[in-house]
């Protein structure tokens, strides 16, 4: 390698270094720009959000303003109506006063009656106007105090619903009672039961009496009682015990009855003198 080559090589290396440096600087610049762009984008997003919020708030303000204006208009209209009603009321009251004055100057009762009717008519009109006024007051209240009105209305509806529930429950109870009263099975059962018990009781008594009588005859039998045949049967001890007790009770009852029918002998002991 000669000198010129070396110089040329050094030059090339120098220019290579410069280019590398420039590339590095440019890369850094590019990175800076990318960061800036990203930051700017974030800022733009933030601003967009703020913008949307402001737009929403503004819309809400506009709506509130519009609502308020509508309310005011409604209230104005209601005020107008109210004023009109009050004026009408005053006019009708004046008319009543006039009619009363006219009535005082009248002599015949028929004419007075006519005036009375007119007064009554005017009073009726005033009553209707007062009712209208009440309705207007309620509407004004509903506009000014919507929450209060809603709450009141809801409470009223709940109370109505509760009343309906109570009424239905009472009706259901009444129906139950009525059903009980009309239920033929219920009504008849007691009567029938009593009859069945009476029949059963009478039958039971009769069969027991017959059984006792037969047994008594058999006991008093002087001749032999012959067993020519029998059918075996298994019975529980409870049933056997029950039958024994039944017979014992029946016999005890019979004995008690016999004793009570026998004349009592009272020994008269003469008083002993000491």
């Amino acid at each position, binding site marked *: 390698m000669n000198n010129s080559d070396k110089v040329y090589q050094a030059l090339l290396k120098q220019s290579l270094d410069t280019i590398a440096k420039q590339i590095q600087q440019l890369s850094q610049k590019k990175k800076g720009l990318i960061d800036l762009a990203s930051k700017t984008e974030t800022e733009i997003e933030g601003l967009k959000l703020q913008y949307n919020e402001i737009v929403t708030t503004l819309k809400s303000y506009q709506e509130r303003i519009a609502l308020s204006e509508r309310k005011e208009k409604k209230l104005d209209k209601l005020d107008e109506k109210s004023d009109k009603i009050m004026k009408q009321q005053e006019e009708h009251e004046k008319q009543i006063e006039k009619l009363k004055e006219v009535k005082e100057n009248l002599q015949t009762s028929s004419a007075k009656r006519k005036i009375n009717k007119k007064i009554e008519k005017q009073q009726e009109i005033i009553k209707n106007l007062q009712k209208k006024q009440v309705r207007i007051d309620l509407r004004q209240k509903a506009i000014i105090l919507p929450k209060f009105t809603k709450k009141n209305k809801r409470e009223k509806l709940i109370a109505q619903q509760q009343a309906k529930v109570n009424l239905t429950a009472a009706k259901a109870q009444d129906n139950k009672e009525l059903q009980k009263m009309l239920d033929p099975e219920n009504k008849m059962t007691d009567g029938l039961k009593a009859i069945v018990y009476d029949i059963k009781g009478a039958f*039971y008594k009769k069969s027991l009496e017959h059984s006792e009588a037969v047994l008594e005859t058999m006991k008093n039998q002087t001749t032999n*009682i012959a067993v020519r045949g029998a059918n*075996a049967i298994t019975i529980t001890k409870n*049933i056997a015990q029950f039958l024994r007790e039944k017979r014992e009770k029946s016999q005890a009852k019979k004995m008690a009855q016999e004793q009570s029918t026998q004349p009592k002998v009272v020994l008269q002991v003469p008083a002993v003198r000491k």
Partner: protein
Amino acid sequence: MDNKIKVVTPDNQTLEIEVLDIFNVTGYEGKDYILYSLGEQIDNEHEQAYISILEKSENDYNLTEIKDAQEWDAVQKAIAEDIKMEQEASNE
């Protein structure tokens, strides 16, 4: 108080029986049936009993076997119903 009576068997043995019930059966009116025990235990819960037709002649009684199957069936049903009814009546 005694529900016991003496009876004579066909081989001329005298037995003492305990009369548990004397009853009638629907469909066989006019007949008396006798339920009695000879005191024979089967197990702790059951005991042996016998049912005979109680025939009354002019001067004496005879206890005879129920030979007709239909009648025996009716008698068993009747005694079961009778006991049930008596238990109900005594409970009321």
